Every structure is written in structure tokens, then in C-alpha cells.
């Protein structure tokens, strides 16, 4: 026998949206940090990107707080399962995109290291993790947010 807590679909939708926004903002922070570390940018460009990353970090922390106060969290975070079918479908689709982008990027990096190991010597393990994490977070959140975008009630 399974027990199911009645959660309103709108609360689940808000939870999924906030979660995707957190991942998008953290993805942005990781990517910007990776770019600033990897490329030798002009001081003003680094400063602009650092401010953008800081703003994203603040935004992400705001949404983390919002998600933690959402009553849906306890039910969905256990198995990352949504009671609403469509929300479950787009959550899984987001993971599919994230997996494929991680799989492809890691394959490309692996191929590069096989043919020219020196090319990646400039990457520290921290930069490498940040870039892959940034890519994974962004490729999860963008399709989810796109599929969640509002349409008019007919």
C-alpha cells in the first residue's frame, strides 16, 4: 500500500520552476567562473562577469530559500518524482538533456586528451568540474523553463 500526500499541481509547478532557476543561476556562476579562469580577459570584462556571477549567486540563494520553504519539497525531493504527469515528463526531459550534454562533452574532452594531452593541461580539476557542472545545470534548466513557459488559458 502506498500513501500519497495531496499536493496541488500549482505548488509542484512552482517548485519545479524554482528548482530549474536555481540550476540555471548556479550553472551561470560555474560557467562564468570557468570562463574568467580559463581565458585571459581584460580587467573590465572580468569585473563585469564577476558582478554578473555575484548577482546570479544571490539570485540562486534566494531561490534555494524559496524552495526550502515550499511544502512540496519533502514529497518530491525523495525520489524527484512529481505527481503531475506533465511536470514529471518535463523534469525527466531536463535530465535527459543534462545527461546527453555531459556525455557528449566528456567524450569530446576524452578524445582531445587521447590525441593531445597537452591541450588540456591548462585546465585544473576545479575548472574542469565547473565547466561540466555549468553545462549540465544549464542544459537541464533551459528546456524545463522553456516547457514551463506560460500560455494563455483557452
Amino acid at each position, binding site marked *: 500500500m502506498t500513501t500519497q500526500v495531496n499536493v496541488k499541481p*500549482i505548488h509542484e509547478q512552482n517548485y519545479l520552476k524554482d528548482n530549474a532557476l536555481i540550476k540555471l543561476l548556479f550553472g551561470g556562476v560555474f560557467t562564468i567562473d570557468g570562463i574568467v579562469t580559463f581565458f585571459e580577459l581584460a580587467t573590465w570584462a572580468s569585473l563585469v562577469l564577476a558582478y554578473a556571477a555575484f548577482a546570479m549567486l544571490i539570485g540562486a540563494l534566494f531561490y534555494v530559500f524559496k524552495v526550502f520553504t515550499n511544502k512540496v519539497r519533502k514529497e518530491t525531493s525523495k525520489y524527484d518524482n512529481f505527481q503531475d*504527469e*506533465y511536470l514529471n515528463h518535463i523534469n525527466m526531459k531536463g535530465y535527459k538533456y543534462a545527461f546527453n550534454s555531459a556525455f557528449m562533452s566528456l567524450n569530446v574532452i576524452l578524445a582531445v586528451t587521447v590525441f593531445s594531452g597537452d591541450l588540456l593541461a591548462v585546465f585544473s580539476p576545479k575548472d574542469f568540474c565547473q565547466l561540466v557542472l555549468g553545462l549540465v545545470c544549464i542544459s537541464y534548466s533551459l528546456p524545463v523553463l522553456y516547457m514551463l513557459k506560460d500560455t494563455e488559458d483557452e
Partner: protein
Amino acid sequence: MNETLDNHIAKLRSKRKISQQRLADAIGVSRKTISTVETGRFTPSVVIALKLARYFEVPVERIFELELID
């Protein structure tokens, strides 16, 4: 041979003059689920199909139709 799933939810809704939100609330799903099912972007489970049939008081086949395309 390809198959496409067609549905008559929009027609049934407009006959009864109910909004997507009202239908969604009645069967316990999000409005997004209803709108994406209506436009054919999302194929629902049997559970939702049966809930829709019960709500509209028609057989499932009157709501969903499998069309064969040569």
C-alpha cells in the same frame, strides 16, 4: 505506416463552456497538462484518459482517436 493521436478535448470543453483551469482542477492535474494534451504535445497516461472520460461522461474513444497515416 505512422500513427497520430488526435483528441477532442477542446471541442468537449467548449461545448460545456469550461476553461482549461477548471478542467485541470476537476481531474487533479496542472493546466499545463491539459493544454499540452489538447495540442498533442504530450500524450497522457491511461489514468488521465479515464479521468477525462469520467468527467465528460463519454467513452475514452470519444475523446482520443488513433489516426493512421500512410
